[in-house]
């Protein structure tokens, strides 16, 4: 079978369309999701196929329509709530953290909240501090939520279909810069389980644990390292919760070195958590301290030369990895 290539945005759209055809309970609501198909045109065509009963434009009321998603999920639907920019999750926090995440546990297991929140992350679009953040660590902190960070069109489609079928609230973060990236995606139905990491590149000398937007950066750095004779392994956890600790630890035990990369803030962030997992689970196998590389701890600035230095790049990761490997 020849491998079909589609964009990340098309993969998301296919996953939604296939699930909506499969299950009439799946519906989408959010700002400009219908005729506009979102500002990124990810949802173009869905309202035409499924109608305005299932693809609904909402007012600019993130807390309100997220709460409606929670209630609708508890009572028989499978809503996919669209939060246009990841920065706007701040407006949904009570609904996600106090309601969606806790309804199942707090009710003694009686109510379920099978909803998906789709939103975005990532800087370098020259959008400044309120449209550029990667805040997925916040939701990863909360028991009751699952958090998905696809890094390829293939993963995006398979993970989104699984998220929609999951019985729990799942937050699905898409890198805005990735929507036009192409990759092989089978036309047939497939799913990818949550909590299973993917080794994006095998290597022997150093492990680059990378999420979402950082996976391409890690792969680019690995190519640069190869020219220096350093073999890097790239591990993509794909979900920050559930977290596939086993695959991460197996890789680090093999390579003895690790850099953890994530576009969120490093402090108290995803990189801190994964670095701690490695320290607890593979300390005696390490030849160097684990290094974290995340967004610089500043609000994302607008000015291009300033913004560009706030996120890890192939070059900065390459340099860090090279130094780490030369020390031993």
């Amino acid at each position, binding site marked *: 079978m020849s491998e079909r290539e589609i964009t990340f945005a098309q993969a998301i759209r296919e996953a939604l369309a296939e699930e909506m055809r499969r299950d009439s309970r799946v519906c989408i609501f959010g700002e400009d999701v219908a005729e506009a198909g979102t500002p990124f045109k990810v949802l173009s065509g869905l309202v035409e196929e499924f109608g305005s009963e299932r693809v609904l434009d909402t*007012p600019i009321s993130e807390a309100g329509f997220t*709460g409606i998603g929670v*209630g609708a999920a508890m009572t028989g639907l499978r809503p996919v709530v669209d939060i246009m920019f990841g920065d706007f999750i701040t407006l949904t926090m009570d*609904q996600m953290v*106090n309601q969606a995440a806790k309804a199942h546990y707090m009710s003694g297991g009686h109510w379920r909240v099978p909803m998906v929140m789709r939103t975005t992350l990532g800087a370098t679009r020259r959008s400044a501090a309120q449209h550029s953040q990667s805040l997925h660590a916040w939701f990863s902190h909360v028991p009751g939520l699952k958090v998905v960070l696809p890094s390829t069109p293939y993963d995006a489609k398979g993970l989104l279909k699984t998220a929609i079928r999951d019985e729990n609230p799942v937050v699905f973060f898409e890198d805005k810069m990735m929507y036009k990236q192409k990759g092989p995606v089978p036309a047939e139905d497939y799913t990818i389980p949550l909590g299973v990491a993917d080794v994006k590149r095998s290597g022997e000398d150093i492990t680059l644990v990378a999420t979402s937007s950082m996976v391409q950066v890690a792969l680019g750095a690995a190519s640069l390292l190869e020219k220096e004779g350093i073999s890097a392994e790239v591990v993509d956890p794909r979900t920050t919760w559930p977290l596939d600790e086993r695959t991460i630890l197996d890789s680090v035990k093999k390579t003895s070195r690790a850099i953890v990369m994530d576009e969120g803030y490093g402090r108290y962030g995803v990189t801190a958590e994964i670095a701690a997992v490695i320290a607890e689970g593979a300390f005696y196998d390490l030849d160097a301290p684990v290094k974290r590389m995340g967004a610089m701890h500043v609000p994302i600035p607008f000015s291009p030369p300033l913004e560009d230095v706030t996120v890890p790049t192939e070059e900065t990761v390459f340099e860090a990895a090279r130094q780490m490997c030369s020390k031993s």
Partner: protein
Amino acid sequence: MSSATTNPQAGTAAQQELWLRAYRQMVRIRLFEEQVNELYTRALMPGLAHLYSGEEAVAVGICEALTVQDYITSTHRGHGHCLAKGAAPDRMFAELLGKEAGYCRGKGGSMHIADPATGNLGANAIVGGSVGIATGAAFAAKRLGNGRVAICFFGEGALGQGSLYEVMNLAQLWKLPVIYVCENNMYNEYTHFSETTAGTILGRAGAFGLEAAPVDGQDVRAVYEVASRLVKRARAGGGPAFLQADTYRYSGHHVGDINREYYRSKQEEQHWKTDRDPIKLHANWLLEQGYVDAGALDRITSEARTEMEAAVKFAVAAPYPSIDQVDQDVYA
């Protein structure tokens, strides 16, 4: 005395049964709450609870207008809503004491009782926290075409939460079968609502075009009649509504709020308890109509007392959950 006795059906046997059941339900709620206070004072209950005494006619009047399949969302002051919607007192007390037999297996407590069997989506300890959930349940009911209606109970304190206005706007745009029931007991915790509420309460719902009605929250028949009309309207696709039920909280904000004179007077409390008590008002009406005699009302009270005492006994004797339950049901 206010009264809503103009219903031509008032004399039928079914109607008599309804008004007697409403009386019994209010008495059950009152006596449930007395036991809660007792459990607190005897240090048998972990944490605190927020008593519904004085507001019984609102929960009962509304829930008598619903089917068991209809949804409610409740509040931190939610025992009355749960009972009125059909919850069993023994499992409620068990929940209040953190026991395995409780509605939430002891994991929710007083402020989180939920029960799918009676359409109770859950009490909520975030003021205004359930306005989205109730509206979402109405969205699902409309989408699935199952004819259910969602009732969103909240106190007037929740009028300060912006999300209420977001979902009322959406409910009206989408013509959802949801009724927002504002129980105005006049106190946002320890602050009189006049200090926190600009404009009018009904004006807020009216701004979105919701059918908005006031009702005497101490008059169970009036509450029932307006609720029946709004529920019927919502079920028929007429869209959302907003009910302002003026009522009074007899106790403090919670069971430990004993000294209240810095925010309200004893005379004010006494006035409501003496002249505006929903149970007394309804009892007098039942007697005036000749539906029952005083002995029958006493029997209702004594049966309810026996029921509540037995329920407390059950809950006190019930075992705590085993420790291995602590990480169960985090995920479905």
